[in-house]
């Protein structure tokens, strides 16, 4: 019985300790974002790696998301006589919800894992310690460029995802389901509202922060060789995916309450 309680206590303490460590890590990172020296070249390089290189995978997933939305809403609403609802549903779902969330999850899988693996390897081979001995702050040199690049490029990626997602809906509605192109475009245009798009972009910036931060945190604190790097990568992807869905709910309840 005592052992059982001790186990619960230990895991609870461990949980709170890691939450505390994560918040400390985030705090230190944010404080270094605003203090010089700044590494602009590294920031640009990370923006290319995180943003530009994610375009194909984000574009493809957004295309299929838009297509399936049009198909689903057409079959779902056909009894209600609402072909007009297809455009509205595609626009609202993509800009508010699916654009940022799906882009966030794809970037978590692609970028979060890559960051955790790279920083993890640097950590277990003493490269991070070596940075400190060469009077370079590892937070500034490694963490800040990645986190900042995530915050900046995710909204840009989501703009692209929104456009391609809505295009996917248009393709299915017009070429497969026989909607009138001009009335579909008209419905799309009147359904498109700036606050919806903006809420999606705010979410995207937060997701970009979450994904890169979790990648950096798990990589930075990985221990114990190849296995440690492997579990850091897994933890980065799993935790950032969960946090994306959690913060998505929280932000939605803030924006639309």
């Amino acid at each position: 019985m005592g052992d059982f309680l001790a186990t619960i206590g230990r895991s609870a303490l461990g949980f709170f300790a890691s939450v505390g460590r994560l918040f400390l890590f985030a705090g230190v990172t944010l404080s270094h974002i605003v203090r010089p020296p700044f590494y602009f070249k590294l920031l640009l390089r990370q923006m290319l790696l995180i943003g530009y290189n994610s375009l194909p995978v984000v574009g493809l997933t957004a295309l299929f998301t838009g297509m399936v939305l049009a198909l689903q809403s057409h079959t779902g609403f056909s009894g209600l006589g609402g072909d007009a609802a297809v455009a509205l549903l595609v626009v609202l779902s993509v800009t508010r919800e699916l654009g940022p969330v799906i882009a966030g999850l794809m970037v978590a899988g692609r970028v979060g894992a890559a960051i955790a693996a790279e920083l993890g390897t640097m950590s277990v081979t003493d490269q991070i310690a070596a940075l400190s001995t060469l009077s370079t702050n590892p937070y500034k040199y490694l963490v800040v460029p990645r986190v900042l690049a995530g915050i900046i490029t995710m909204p840009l990626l989501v703009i692209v995802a929104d456009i391609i997602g809505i295009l996917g809906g248009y393709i299915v509605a017009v070429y497969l389901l026989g909607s009138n192109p001009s009335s579909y475009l008209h419905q799309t245009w009147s359904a498109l509202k700036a606050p919806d798009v903006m809420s999606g972009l705010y979410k995207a910036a937060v997701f970009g922060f979450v994904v890169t931060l979790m990648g950096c945190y798990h990589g930075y604190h990985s221990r114990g060789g190849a296995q440690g790097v492997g579990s850091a990568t897994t933890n980065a992807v799993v935790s950032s995916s969960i946090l994306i869905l959690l913060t998505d709910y929280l932000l939605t309840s803030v924006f639309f309450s």
Partner: protein
Amino acid sequence: MTAKIVIKGLCKAFGRKKVLQGVDLEIEQGESVVVIGGSGSGKSVLLKCILGLLRPDSGEILVDGQPTVHLGSSDRARMLTKFGMLFQGAALFDSLPVWQNVSFGLIQGEGMKLPEAKRLAIDTLAKVGLGADVADLFPAELSGGMQKRVGLARAIASKPEVIFFDEPTTGLDPIMSDVINQLIVERVRDLGATALSITHDMASARKIADRIVMLYQGKIIWQGKTAEIDHSGNAYVDQFINGRAEGPIQMEVRAS
């Protein structure tokens, strides 16, 4: 004159495992001290505490008479400009070519312009016996011995006052080990630097050290001039330097 580095009563534990249990050590300006000891005796932790990569639980570390344990990050960065370190696995940045590795501290820390940094990197590489053709290679393309040399070049590039060597010969063949040892002795003498090395390679220790310190179970159990180590009269030291399985030191076979 005060010693370059003074360590007083240094303790560090990880969970219940006490790694350092009250280490006292003084290192004079220009002296080369080698800390020997088995795996898990706390050698690496000692180095990391001095560099501030780990925070000791208690005890004091003075560098040039200045206490360093509670320094903030910018003060510590300033202190670390006096230090150079050669890591066990060389710890070269694998995303950068060799010359940027060597002059990393100068480019990032002191804002040196790239062409000048490259010239200096090539000069420094020459001092460790590497040609200019190595400068544009990436660390992954080098052999273990060459990586160690580049690591040494990186450690001395900013002309530090203190250089740390973490197991400089581990994983090298005996000849390459001796080459690295020779380079270490020459470069340290050249710079007039203070050196602190940790190793379990006795050939390396005898070659590099002015003074040898033996660490066992988190405490210093013997120290003396290099020449005295063969007549230490200490059973632990005798067992260690002769590499005998039998003796007062019992290897912990069980992982803890």
